[in-house]
């Protein structure tokens, strides 16, 4: 849209531009729809595939994007656009009402089908992936929806739950889920607690980002340190303060 007149908000830069430490994509101010995608791909590389023997697709949490792009509303909008186009899938991970996991749709389908090789439940899962996952972007499915819209039978639904594609939500409805993701959730929560503990134990409960990335991680932290840092910054469990020596992470008491 070509504006003849500038917006008043552009005349007064609402946020002072700081020449802060250059991070990957830190200064990207909505350069275009592909920017979120490339950030997602970068975050996916931080996910440890070997840890799960390549059985899990690469999972990124939605709030990790907030630590890289500062405009949260824009990030939300872009993520919804990708979901509507069918390229991205969002999952309710279960340990936090606000923690949503994002997986590329293609990754998800290949991994799930690979996991179903030679199993009895394969046919039901294939049908589910084709019909339900491709067409609707919901996070959960209720019983009548499954029976009437997608024409699944009760036994098929049981098979889907057995295979791990659906998880019980309450009587008569199920969350969409990633098979074998229990291990992921366990290691993730463990790692998050350990990293937060490291920040909290530091002097004044604050530590430079560069320093904590250098630190030797305990056996509790199984993921890449950067993965956890993006997570705690995005979830606002630590405050990210730009300083002359780099970004400082300060523990937030809540």
């Amino acid at each position, binding site marked *: 849209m070509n504006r003849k007149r500038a917006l*008043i908000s552009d005349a007064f830069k*609402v946020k002072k531009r700081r020449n802060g430490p250059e991070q990957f994509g830190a200064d990207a101010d909505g350069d275009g729809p592909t920017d979120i995608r490339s950030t997602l791909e970068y975050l996916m590389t931080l996910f440890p595939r070997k840890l799960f023997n390549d059985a899990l697709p690469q999972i990124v949490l939605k709030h990790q994007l907030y630590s890289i792009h500062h405009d949260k509303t824009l990030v939300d909008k872009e993520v919804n656009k990708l979901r509507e186009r069918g390229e991205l899938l969002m999952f309710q991970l279960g340990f936090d009402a606000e923690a949503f996991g994002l997986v590329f749709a293609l990754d998800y389908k290949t991994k799930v089908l690979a996991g179903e090789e030679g199993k009895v439940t394969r046919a039901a899962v294939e049908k589910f992936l084709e019909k339900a996952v491709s067409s609707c972007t919901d996070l959960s499915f209720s019983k009548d929806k499954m029976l009437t819209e997608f024409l699944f039978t009760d036994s098929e639904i049981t098979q889907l739950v057995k295979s791990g594609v659906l998880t019980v*939500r309450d009587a008569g409805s199920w969350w969409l889920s990633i098979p074998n993701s229990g291990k992921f959730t366990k290691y993730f929560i463990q790692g998050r607690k350990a990293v937060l503990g490291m920040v909290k134990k530091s002097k004044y409960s604050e530590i430079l980002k560069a320093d904590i990335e250098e630190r030797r991680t305990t056996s509790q932290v199984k993921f890449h340190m950067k993965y956890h840092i993006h997570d705690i910054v995005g979830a*606002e469990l630590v405050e990210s303060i730009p300083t002359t020596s780099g970004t400082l992470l300060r523990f937030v008491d809540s």
Partner: protein
Amino acid sequence: MLGFLTARQAGLDDPLRLRRAESTRRVLGLKLNPDRDVDRVHGNGVNTIDIDAIEGKHMLSGGADGVIVIYDLENFSGKPQYTCKAVCTVGRSSRYVHKFSVETVQWYPYDTGMFISSSFDKTMKVWDTETLKPAEVFEFEGNVYSHHLSPIARKHSLIAVGTQNPKIQLCDLKSGSRIHVLHGHRGEILSVRWSPRYEHILATASADSKVKVWDVRRASGCLFTLDQHNGDKSKASSEAVNTAHNGRVNGLCFTGDGLYLLTTGTDDRMRLWNSATGENTLVNYGKVCNESRKRLQFTVSHGCSPEFVFVPCGSSVAVYALHSGELVTMLRGHYNNVDCCEFHPDYQELYSGGKDCNILAWVPVLRASDVEEETSRENKGAAGQSSVNPAFQDAWSSDED
């Protein structure tokens, strides 16, 4: 800024545009000013403040000790250094003072002859400002968290009252009756607010995580309940269906034009809703720290572009841009939790009160005086800051020439 001025001069721009630009510039420059002070009268935390809508001259404040103070905000002294003096107080010695903390105060919207205060002593009192005696006392069964009188109503003078009881009472100011009750909530009502656009629309927020919007003319239930997922039942667990927040909703504020409604909740989130349809606009403000067990009084700026939201967040006031959700700045200055804040639309000033018994005035930073002006003043004046007109100054010199 000069661009806006020349455009206004040449008639290229609407006069309103220049006004908005200047208001926005002033709000972006809000700072604690050492010259502006508010008299410290409260001995205990300040719970609520209200500035009168007609002149913007007087400010009411209600404290945790039941004391109500009226301040004069206007600065006619001619000096930049000014303390907003307390004009009168309803102190602990008054016979009619509230027994427990005052939770909400509000000026009568049409003149400052009357104000209404409600308190944890389960009463709401309508005071006559002249005599500082209550003209009317309404008694309730539970603590009164919040009340609001519609600022634009011409056809009715109903005061909506939110108490510990899940039923919202509407008290009529003219007749003193309280037969109108709104049913629907299941938890205590933490905040009530009339729409500044339609005099019959009322929004209420409750501890049961729901926000309901009512039309008081309708006999049946509420118009709609705000749903944070916009009807997408799949996003949350099934108990969280139709809730505005994942915790208690303790703050409500309409924008100046009444088109949008802001709500804050103890799930540390603030949401912006379209007040006509009840749709969540999904603006993401991030984590807005909120631990208040009572009503949180926050405010929206008026006459700027973009509008700003001022929310008390712990011991500072957070300023967010309304529609984009980004954090503009944090105003730090209080020593303890901030409970309330109020925006003065004419001067673009913000007043905030908190548990440290102070009311702080955040004033737009004025242009610092040039070096030239200062030295010339030093040469003329004999002793420091004299604002005497140079024509009246003695030009006589004792030098015999």
